């Protein structure tokens, strides 16, 4: 079927453009009016033709517009970008019409018919979303079952930890060499102490809050934060181990990596919560949250190791030889020559691993830790607030989407910043 053959042959392309754009705008207008005002201006046409009318008209219009060169910038752009062939014209129309059809119901559900006022379910009278539910439960989604009057402790702990994370930027030139030491050793310890003393409490006159009460988004942050910090150095060691010349070290690393990469995280979490306590001495107690963090760290370290190994393998042999010929030992060579270059190469891969880690944290829900997915499940089954699962999941999805999208964009920027021509 080639409709462009039936195009009216005129010496003046302007007429074609006029006819084409008229038909195209008619088609778009038809769909627009129908979806926004529920007004069917082509209702005089019989059944199926009525349905496909805008598609046919728009298609003919686009094939009128399509030409090599018209001299009008807009038309040339349209032809080049959305209308290069019949097939593309059809897809273009389908996309435009789908968007036009989808906007009104989505808009009315999310904004126009939605309710946000009030404090009870009774306030939700509209046919749209009930954002009141999110508003009422917001603190629970953020802080879990943590006591309301103590939320400042979580907030201030996060602010402190983030502020300490930026300290590295302000290091003086002569302190720069301790930067890695700071981030790998000192920072995690300080962060742990802050979170332990401020969020858990128990000393300095703060009330003890057990980890079972932690939850919501803040728990997601705590778990991902510690896993991120710990899994990176562990992964680095494993990657070096896998490339080691010592057979024992090499095979232990390989077994470790392949084992963790082969099992799903959910079974690892089950193991950490069910099996692991059995191997501990009778009087020894380890908090469930700590066990889960250890499990996720061990799991993600294997993925991290594989990514870093990729970077190590990508370096040319000459770098190793050059470092050795300068008289550097194994550790010196790796710390000053190999790892800086290798890590630069694998920034996107590392960022992907970290993203996967953040996206995996909702899984701790299955062992009974109520982070945001867990809180949603709780709120959903609350007898006073039945029937708002959709709003809850959309809310959580938006939050996670923003976090993950920001992370991926940041990693892209980092990649561009450290990109060096090789």
């Amino acid at each position, binding site marked *: 079927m080639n409709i462009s053959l039936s195009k009216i042959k005129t010496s003046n392309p302007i007429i074609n453009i006029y006819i084409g754009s008229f038909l195209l705008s008619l088609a778009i207008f038809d769909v627009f009016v129908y979806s926004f005002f529920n007004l069917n201006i082509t209702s005089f046409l019989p059944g199926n033709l009525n349905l496909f009318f805008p598609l046919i008209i728009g298609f003919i219009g686009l094939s009128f517009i399509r030409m090599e060169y018209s001299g009008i910038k807009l038309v040339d752009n349209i032809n080049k*970008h*959305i209308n*290069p062939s019949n097939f*593309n014209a059809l*897809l*273009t129309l389908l*996309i*435009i019409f789908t968007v036009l059809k989808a906007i009104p119901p989505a808009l009315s559900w999310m904004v126009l018919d939605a309710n946000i006022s009030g404090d009870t379910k009774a306030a939700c009278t509209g046919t749209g979303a009930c954002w009141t539910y999110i508003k009422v439960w917001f603190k629970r989604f953020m802080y879990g079952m943590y006591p309301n009057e103590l939320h400042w402790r979580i907030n201030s702990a996060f602010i402190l930890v983030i502020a300490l994370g930026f300290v590295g930027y302000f290091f003086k030139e002569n302190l720069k060499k301790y930067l890695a030491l700071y981030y790998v050793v000192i920072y995690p310890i300080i962060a742990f102490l802050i979170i332990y003393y401020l969020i858990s409490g128990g000393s300095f006159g703060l009330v003890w809050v057990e980890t079972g009460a932690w939850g919501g988004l803040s728990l997601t942050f705590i778990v991902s934060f510690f896993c991120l910090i710990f899994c990176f150095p562990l992964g680095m060691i494993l990657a070096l181990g896998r490339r080691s010349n010592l057979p024992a070290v090499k095979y232990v690393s390989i077994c470790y990596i*392949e*084992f963790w*990469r*082969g*099992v*799903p*995280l*959910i*079974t690892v979490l*089950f*193991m950490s919560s*069910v*099996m692991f306590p*059995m*191997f501990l001495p*009778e009087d020894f107690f380890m908090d469930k949250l700590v066990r889960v963090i250890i499990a996720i760290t061990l799991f993600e370290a294997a993925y991290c190791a594989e990514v870093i190994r990729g970077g190590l393998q990508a370096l040319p042999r000459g770098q190793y030889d050059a470092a050795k010929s300068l008289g550097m030992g194994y550790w010196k060579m790796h710390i000053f020559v190999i790892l800086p270059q290798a890590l630069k190469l694998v920034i996107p891969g590392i960022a992907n691993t970290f*993203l996967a880690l*953040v*996206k*995996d*944290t*909702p*899984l701790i*829900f*299955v062992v009974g830790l109520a982070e945001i*997915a867990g809180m*949603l*499940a709780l709120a*959903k089954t609350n007898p006073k607030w039945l029937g708002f*699962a*959709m709003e809850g*999941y*959309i809310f*959580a*999805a938006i939050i*996670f*989407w923003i976090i*993950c*999208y920001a992370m*991926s964009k940041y990693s892209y920027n980092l990649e561009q910043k450290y990109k060096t021509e090789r």
Partner: protein
Amino acid sequence: MDNRGIDFGFGFLKQEASFDMQFTLLDYDGQDSYAWAYVVALLNTLLVSFLGIIFCTILGVIIGVARLSQNFLIRNSAAWYVEFFRNIPLLLQIFFWYYAALRALPLPETAEPWFGVTYMTIKGYYIPSMIWENLNVFLSCLIAAIVSIIFIRIYARKLQEREGKQLPVFYISIGLLIILPLLSFLIGGVKLDFELPVLKQLAQTSFIFEGGIALPPELIALVVALSLYTSTFVAECVRAGIQGISKGQKEAAASVGLNPNQILKLVIMPQALRIIIPPTTNQYLNLTKNSSLAAAIAYPDLVLVFAGTALMQTGKAIEIVGITMLTYLTISLSIAALMNWYNKRIEIKEK
């Protein structure tokens, strides 16, 4: 371990499982052993993975190609699709489909048929089941068709190498695939009947569909979420693969006189597949491992049935978690080994 009163052993596998499963592929009831429960649950896991892999491949290839389209709208819609589904945790997506989207479906009594004979309801998707007569004749015809296609391919390749002639292998294959099974219907005495799902009233307000195959909503939610999520990664692999082929290859192929179809088939695809297949296999593995999230919405897969119910009943934590992990490990390692073998086979042999 001893001082906690735990005895280690696999004897429990022979005991009666005495729990029921909502959805099984093979016959199973509470009187069967734990070992059989394990097999049935493993099959459920494999079913989800299999369906997920098929759908995510189809979607992923379409989106991946669309990301390279010259059409501005298509390119950007595909890019937004990838950014959207990739950045939302899989568990949330599964929950969304299961608790929010599928709960909005109609009850069985008010369900409108899709395609005339299938019903999408809140209790699941009901499709007609097939009742075969002389199924083995049909299957042997199908196998014969596949075997003959393989031989024709080999012959066509030899013919091309020897004389430079090209057989229309594709059309011959399609023809064989249609004609041989059709013959089995006409001569072989194969009969195919469909059992349609029929609405049945259980009580005043309780309706149910009987007959046919019922796909439970857990399965649908899981397959939809897994394939949407994984398809974004497959799409990125496909895009990287096609972009990895330098323009010169295409131009060189065109300059020796190949037509666009031949360029795609003989020059671009073999090279692109070399880049696409290893990371895509990785994604398939991830999908298989992610299918264990089924436990969160109570789809009876390996983790829920074996590492959940069976573990609670027997208390054999070490053995059961060990077996479960070993199963996933076996699947992963065997696919990885297969992939390594394939990689070796197709890698560029440099002199």
